[in-house]
């Protein structure tokens, strides 16, 4: 969706505030939100994480801290999963007779969860583009989650490298994955001037990782 999260190229969002000696978490609850998100994610029963982050209304998205957004997305995904009723989240009390059928992630499995390896990439179709080939990012505006940033749409670049086959991550308007649709992902090199015009340096380039479905020959 053309949401506030798709920020590349926007102006006016303020100075970059780098904090010295920044702690990993600024408060205990931040670490708990991260851990809850992973532990519940391991059940495989929650909806698409990034889709629900992107569904946070724009004014809230800009106002909220990072882990507040994670918490908001987690609550939404839990409610929709059927594992937890909204009423239970509001009251903090387990409703009588609510199911306990999903086993919790045991601590013994945490190292495996963290050490997750990519493994073999899914088999996909042949690649349609080769390194050095000129391509154009499609001018499409999907309503669901997409990994094609707005600032690249309709712009031409050169295939830098074929990274091989990856599962497609886009969703439909309701957050249901369109994938796996395994297909090639390419590093595409865009001249900064192709993206931003004459104000950009002629010596700057932006590399974007794009799935085959996002590209057409130019």
């Amino acid at each position: 969706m053309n949401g506030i999260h798709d920020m590349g190229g926007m102006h006016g969002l303020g100075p970059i505030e780098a904090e010295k000696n920044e702690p990993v978490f600024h408060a205990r609850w931040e670490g708990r939100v991260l851990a809850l998100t992973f532990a519940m994610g391991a059940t495989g029963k929650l909806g698409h994480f990034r889709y629900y982050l992107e569904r946070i209304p724009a004014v809230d998205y800009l106002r909220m801290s990072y882990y507040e957004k994670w918490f908001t997305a987690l609550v939404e995904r839990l409610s929709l999963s059927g594992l937890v009723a909204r009423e239970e989240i509001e009251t903090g009390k387990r409703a009588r007779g609510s199911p306990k059928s999903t086993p919790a992630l045991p601590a013994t499995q945490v190292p495996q969860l963290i050490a997750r390896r990519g493994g073999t990439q899914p088999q996909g179709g042949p690649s349609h583009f080769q390194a050095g080939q000129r391509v154009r990012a499609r001018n499409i505006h999907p309503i669901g989650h997409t990994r094609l940033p707005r600032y690249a749409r309709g712009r031409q670049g050169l295939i830098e490298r074929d990274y091989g086959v990856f599962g497609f991550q886009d969703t439909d308007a309701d957050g249901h994955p369109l994938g796996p649709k395994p297909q090639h992902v390419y590093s595409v090199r865009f001249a900064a001037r192709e993206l931003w015009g004459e104000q950009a340096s002629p010596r700057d380039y932006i590399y974007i990782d794009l799935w085959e479905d996002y590209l057409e020959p130019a």
Partner: protein
Amino acid sequence: METSRRGTAGGAAAGSAHGAGHSHDHDHQAVPSDLTLRVKSLESLLVEKGLVDRAALDALVDAYENKIGPRNGARVVARAWTDPAYKQRLLADANSAIAELGFSGRQGEHMVVLENTPKVHNLVVCTLCSCYPWPVLGLPPVWYKSAPYRSRAVIDPRGVLNEFGTEIGEDVEVRVWDSTADLRYLVLPERPSGTEKFTEDELAALITRDSMIGVAKVALRKSGS
């Protein structure tokens, strides 16, 4: 904002730097104070329902707070600076070379290493969310995930570098890598001159998180300072 905040070292070093000198005037301070309670309440509910195990949550927090951080990436860079064969392997197949040093895992399943040279400077961003190479750099800092960096890194990379106190010559090519897919990028910064006699450990102590994101260069200073 305070310019002192933008230090080129960017608070790089420790993956588990706790609190010391942390001043409280950031975005996260605007967080409603009831979040502590809401998160606690949700955790209790999920525990009561048997959906999460507190020990698993503790283990997850401990791993990201204390075990996984930019010191890992610094080991990789220091090895590449001192062992040409390793550097070659790192640039050709980052996953395997990084795993040689014992680092791998979630959000680093498909690593790519980008070499800075006198003619090319690389900078990493995720304009859509917060993609970042966790096994080598840990969880990303707030500024990396924030709107100002995500919005401007692609349209004005030299301006962004300037904000970090990093000057890039007009003749140098700047490459910005927007992490939009499953690939995760680590910058291999230039080794500063004057470090020819440094040991691998001494080199690793110089290497900052920010230099491996590409917003800073590695500066020569006494290790531990």
